[in-house]
């Protein structure tokens, strides 16, 4: 069989730094995309996307369904090849040197792709091999991943006996076996109970505090607001806003929103009034949120004042409600 091995270089794990490199001015960005375009036939899924992930930070990729988040994620592992633009991950150019980049990154997929007939530990063992963890360190790596994901007690359970939250934790553990410098999380908490979601947030927050670079796609705004140093809001394949959550809120939605309730007719009138005065509005089912009005709304509109949030920004910029 044409298996070339000995003369081919393989990654020697011992050559690698174990601790994540401290971000220095010369450290390459964990992710750097420039004018990236990806088309599927007539459909342009990603249309000139720029994206930066400075080492050691957590960046959220926010956008409605079909905004190009998943395609972007696939391009970062070279499971989709960009038609145009430059992509660099951990200093490696994609797609040519993608394999080196993949050796130092962990991916938590949106779709559960565990081997269901295997135990928790067997699932991890397989990926310890795939991620080339050397034999002497394999068991320690598995134990460490089990401990981080809080699955020590379940190591002999089969994957299909686990709850949804545990399976997601196992997927995260699987992505951490080789102590990656970068982790891609594709919708990490989709379909999970609120309580389970919070457990996962704690886990992700812990990784971030350990200096791992994280790119997370999500359409849960609260998730991005809590975990991300910076968010990129995507719409129709490109970035429509980039910045820290608080900065984006201040820039696009102002400090406060006025939530006005009423009949659909009344809400229509409120929207017209706000438009005339140059205020931005957002319909949320039973109410209209008026943004950027400040004290000028006193005496004009009756409603409840609340602080603005990232969701306001998202809806204003993408024109789409969160599903």
């Amino acid at each position: 069989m044409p298996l070339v091995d000995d003369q081919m270089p393989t990654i020697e794990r011992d050559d690698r730094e174990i601790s994540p490199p401290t971000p220095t001015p010369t450290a390459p960005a964990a992710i750097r995309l420039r004018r990236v375009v990806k088309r599927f036939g007539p459909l342009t899924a990603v249309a000139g996307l720029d994206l930066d992930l400075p080492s050691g930070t957590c960046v959220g990729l926010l956008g409605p369904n079909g905004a190009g988040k998943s395609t972007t994620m696939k391009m970062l592992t070279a499971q989709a090849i960009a038609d145009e633009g430059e992509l660099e991950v951990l200093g490696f150019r994609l797609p040519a040197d993608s394999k080196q980049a993949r050796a130092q990154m962990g991916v938590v997929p949106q779709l559960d792709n565990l081997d269901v007939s295997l135990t928790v530990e067997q699932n991890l063992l397989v990926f310890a091999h795939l991620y080339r963890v050397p034999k002497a360190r394999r068991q320690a790596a598995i134990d460490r991943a089990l401990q981080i994901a809080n699955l020590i007690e379940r190591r002999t359970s089969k994957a299909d006996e686990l709850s949804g939250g545990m399976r997601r934790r196992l997927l995260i553990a699987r992505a951490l076996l080789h102590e990656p410098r970068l982790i891609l999380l594709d919708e990490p908490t989709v379909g999970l109970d609120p309580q389970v979601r919070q457990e996962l947030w704690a886990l992700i927050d812990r990784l971030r505090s350990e200096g791992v670079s994280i790119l997370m796609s999500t359409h849960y705004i609260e998730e991005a607001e809590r975990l991300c140093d910076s968010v990129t809001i995507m719409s129709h394949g490109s970035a429509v806003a980039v910045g820290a959550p608080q900065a984006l809120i201040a820039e696009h939605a102002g400090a406060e929103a006025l939530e006005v309730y009423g009949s659909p007719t009344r809400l229509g009138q409120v929207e017209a009034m706000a438009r005339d005065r140059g205020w931005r509005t957002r319909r949320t089912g039973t109410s209209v949120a008026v943004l950027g009005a400040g004290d000028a709304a006193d005496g004009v509109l009756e409603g409840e004042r609340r602080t603005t949030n990232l969701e306001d920004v998202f809806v204003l910029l993408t024109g789409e409600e969160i599903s």
Partner: protein
Amino acid sequence: MATTTTAAPTRRLGRLERAAVRGVMVREIVNFSSFWRSSTFSSTVDPTIYLLAFGFGFGSLVSTVAGYDYIDFVGTGIVATTVLFSGAFPAMYSTFVKYQFQHTYDAILAAPVDTEELVTAEALWIAARTGTYGCVPMLVAVVFGLDPSWGMLLVPLIAALAGYGWASFGIFIAAKAKTIESFSYWQSGLLTPLFLVAGTFFPLDQLPEWARILGNVNPLYHCVELVRHAVFGFEGWADVGHLAFLVAFALIAWRLAVHYMERRLIL
């Protein structure tokens, strides 16, 4: 930031690295530990039934075929049938299930493994199984009167080589398939005719010319001939030809499998 240089503390990783191929095979082996019983059963019992049915059924009508005792003829030819059953079919179904339903390949390709390594590892693992399973009906035939010979020691290697080709061909079929139902066309339209026109149960030389020609481009036929000659004595250049055909088949099917799986898995 604009002057990000290509940081390459590690050397560039090559194609077909042993570590990647081994990683994928480890996954298969660990999974195999949970379903080896059913897999072994279907891969060895089917051909054994064919062996017994033809051996007793046909064998009662004819005593010798093409100069062999019928049990010798069919007991060696059956190796190729096992190769097909335990090579092409598992490759087709398991490949399709792994990329379409279980999304296993998404997870593997997110690790430092390329499609070429993935396909090669899958085919190698199936080839290893085929080399083993291929001998089972032959050993059953030994019980029923096939004389053991030293040449039988080569049979696992021949079965593994042919198995690598058929496994690759199965992966190629799966990569082309849009639905699992479309496998029926390949099975009924191609694999079943090839299975019958392989010289396993009856010799090809009494068949019409078109069937003989079909037989000569049938990798199963070359596998049958090579196994038979390994057991009863090689026939010089003819066997070099059979071997060359099997090697060529394995190489072509392997490249087809890699190419179409790349098209399938990489968007």
